């Protein structure tokens, strides 16, 4: 072989073989290894973590994905799968010694099966595109993460994405019936089925939210629902966030399950209002958006009930969207909350804890105290119906020390969520971001079980290694730094 040219970074013989073999499997345009070409793949939606992979591949057939996996398996090269890259936890962060496998070219809607209310699509199909394709049959795909115009269904399954309608319609795991996946060995497997349950273990649940650790998703069959005859949204303003929290409990205790039930605090309200002019009351301490859907008659009945419940809970103002345009506008404010808050500061850091709803006043109070302590403003948006809290910490990464202060603040919020009986992530996933907090959420025994489970799919640990589930050693190091209530977590482990 000729000597390596000077401008190419020296590669190991295995990396050379990998690149040569990838070129044999894929068209040359589908293999990127130039740093500038790979730049768009260096991070996902959590851009504080960036890294270039060894190579980016963009296959467009299942056979190509299988061939890539067979090759990587043979050469023991790690693989990180990626959808649209809108994830918020660094789950698609590349590995410098690994392949970044983009599913972006898998964009076809394969089949809308209206009589069975199913859609079969490729993983790179955008979430919203499924509902758009199903609309002609009076059907839609229910989970609607805020990024639904950009995020893809494959990524949704990998992260078990939620959205603003989860309380009534569930998460991704509740709305997927069948997957085709490519295993780490390059074998094609069907998981679940077009029937309402499938023989054997519920691997479909296991794949949902598995963050690319178990297999590569190459086809997804989702359940479609009938579009409700009517959806109506109420906006209620409160002068006290605790009253808004109590109103949520009152609605649910009355036996009403709204299609969406969202809360925003003052900073989030003002940011959204300035950004999209949704008509939110700027002076309110909190607003609730309560969407009711169903038949015309039912929606009318529940609107009256919810209006009364909101008034009884001390709402200073209750408005019903006058028409579909205003309903969309009310939601636009909420769905734009992240970018809207993003305009208030050079950077923001979005947290994703879930708590039992009754803990909301306590948790929000503690967050506001920490906000003062760290001198970092926080805007809160809250999927109030299902207890999923998104505090957005505003900071400036260019100010020395501010990023690390923000991260410490964020970690304390997540630990608080665990302490009150909740979880470190409701819908954004663990990825790279919350890997240390997993050591607080779980003990060594559970983490070991997770590793054993992964090994059943991926014995060599080639699929997205280092994400989602921390090693025990990592937890031991983390535990040594964060002694909690005087208790050393993972005390049985050696300290390094």
């Amino acid at each position, binding site marked *: 072989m000729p000597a390596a040219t000077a401008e190419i970074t020296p590669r190991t013989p295995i990396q050379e073989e990998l690149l040569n073999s990838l070129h044999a499997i894929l068209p040359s345009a589908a293999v990127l290894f130039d740093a500038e070409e790979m730049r768009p793949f260096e991070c996902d939606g959590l851009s504080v973590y960036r890294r270039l992979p060894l190579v980016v591949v963009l296959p467009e057939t299942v056979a190509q994905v299988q061939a890539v996996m067979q090759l990587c398996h043979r050469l023991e090269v790690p693989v990180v799968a990626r959808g649209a890259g809108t994830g918020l936890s660094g789950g698609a962060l590349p590995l410098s010694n690994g392949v970044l496998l983009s599913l972006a070219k898998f964009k076809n809607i394969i089949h809308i099966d209206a009589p069975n209310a199913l859609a079969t699509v490729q993983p790179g199909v955008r979430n919203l595109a499924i509902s758009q394709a199903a609309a002609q049959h009076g059907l839609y795909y229910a989970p609607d993460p805020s990024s639904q115009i950009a995020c893809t269904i494959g990524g949704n399954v990998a992260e078990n994405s939620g959205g603003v309608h989860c309380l009534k319609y569930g998460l991704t795991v509740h709305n997927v019936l069948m997957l085709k996946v490519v295993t780490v060995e390059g074998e094609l497997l069907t998981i679940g089925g077009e*029937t309402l349950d499938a023989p054997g273990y519920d691997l479909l649940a296991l794949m*949902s939210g598995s963050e690319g650790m178990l297999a590569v998703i190459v086809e997804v069959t989702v359940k479609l629902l009938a*579009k409700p005859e009517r959806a109506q949204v109420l906006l209620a303003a409160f002068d006290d966030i605790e009253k808004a929290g109590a109103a949520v409990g009152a609605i649910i205790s009355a036996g009403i399950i709204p299609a969406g039930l969202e809360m925003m605090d003052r900073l989030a309200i003002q940011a959204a209002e300035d950004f999209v002019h949704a008509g939110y009351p700027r002076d309110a301490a909190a607003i609730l958006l309560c969407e009711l859907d169903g038949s015309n008659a039912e929606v009318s009945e529940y609107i009256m009930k919810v209006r009364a419940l909101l008034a009884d809970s001390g709402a200073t103002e209750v408005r019903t969207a006058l028409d579909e345009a205003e309903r969309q506008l009310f939601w636009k404010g909420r769905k734009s909350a992240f970018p809207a808050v993003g305009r208030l500061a050079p950077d923001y850091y979005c947290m994703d804890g879930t708590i039992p709803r009754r803990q909301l006043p306590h948790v929000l109070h503690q967050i506001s105290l920490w906000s003062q302590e760290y001198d970092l403003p926080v805007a809160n948006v809250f999927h109030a119906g299902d207890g999923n809290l998104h505090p957005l910490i505003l900071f400036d990464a260019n100010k020395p020390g501010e990023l690390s202060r923000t991260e410490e603040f964020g970690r304390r919020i997540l630990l608080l969520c665990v302490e009150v009986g*909740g979880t470190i992530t*409701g819908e954004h996933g663990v990825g790279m971001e919350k890997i240390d907090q997993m050591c607080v959420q*779980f003990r060594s025994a*559970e983490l070991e*079980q997770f590793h054993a489970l992964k090994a059943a799919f991926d014995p060599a640990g080639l699929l997205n290694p280092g994400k989602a589930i921390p090693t025990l050693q990592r937890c031991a190091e983390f535990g040594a730094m964060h002694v909690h209530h005087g208790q050393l977590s993972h005390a049985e482990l050696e300290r390094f």
Partner: protein
Amino acid sequence: MAGDITETLQQQVQRAAAEGTALDIQGGGSKRFLGHAAMGSALPVRNHRGVIDYDPSELVLTARAGTPLAEIENTLAQNAQMLPFEPPHFGPDATLGGTIACGLSGPRRPYAGSARDFVLGCKMLNGTGELLNFGGRVMKNVAGYDVPRLMTGAHGTLGLLLEISLKVLPRPPASLTLIQECSAEAAIARMSHLLSQPVPVDGACYHAGHCYLRVSGSALAVKHAHEVVGGEVVERPDHFWQQLREHQLPFFSTANCIYRVLVKPATPPLPLAGNWLLDWGGAQRWLVSEEPLARIRACVSAAGGHVTRFRGAPDGGEIFQPLGAPMLALHQRLKASFDPHCILNPGRMYANL
């Protein structure tokens, strides 16, 4: 009545793991007919019981696995709530643990979701007797692999369930059951058509020449749905759905094998001789047939479905739809990752699992 016997159970599993003896996990015994015959020493879980946490406004209930299902349903009913997946009991002694381990759901399943859809978290023992906690008591939680849902329907082969947290929902304030005489083809077309209509159907069944539709929601919603759907109002509808759910309709009184056939709901009637009852809007079909098993499996597989020999299966052959070789191998590796000594309900679900 309430009791926490975690320690005793843990010791029993640890001892069995050390000795390599198989355990036969027993709840209320109401679903022992399902699956291969149990082998191993009895491990009763019934005394591990009691509701641990239930705050109706949080829509979450946590109970020990041995808690009678009836007790949980009563507790929920007192707060106008329910288990949305309408689980079959198949006997007065059904426990929560057995219900989740078997993963069975009742008539509301296609419209509300299955048992596993409502499982939020579990405390369990794996096959080495380690006490493990997965998931939680909140509705949205993506920390770690979804082990609680993996346990659902695993028939105790991956772990011994100790505590289960479930999402619960308000009971609909009103409900009507509407009946129409029609052919199976017409019923399938009707039930399939309703999947894309904004009508609050939460039960759809075809039985003895009649299509039964249950619509539930607010009083006005139900009245409106009746106008859209049509049909005669059934008296004592709860009785019908309960008898369907519990296999107490005369259809199920047979000494022959009852097959559970799952297909896509719009699948036309299958060319298999025998008696059919269609539940789940056509997606779950019960068959009493004297056709050979191989022919039944082949016919259903050709339609994209699968078959369980649910009750009264003669000895020999798999009970559940056999898995392909790569899938079976993956199941065996998963089983080994939870139960390396293969002591938890071995062979109960599949012969080699």
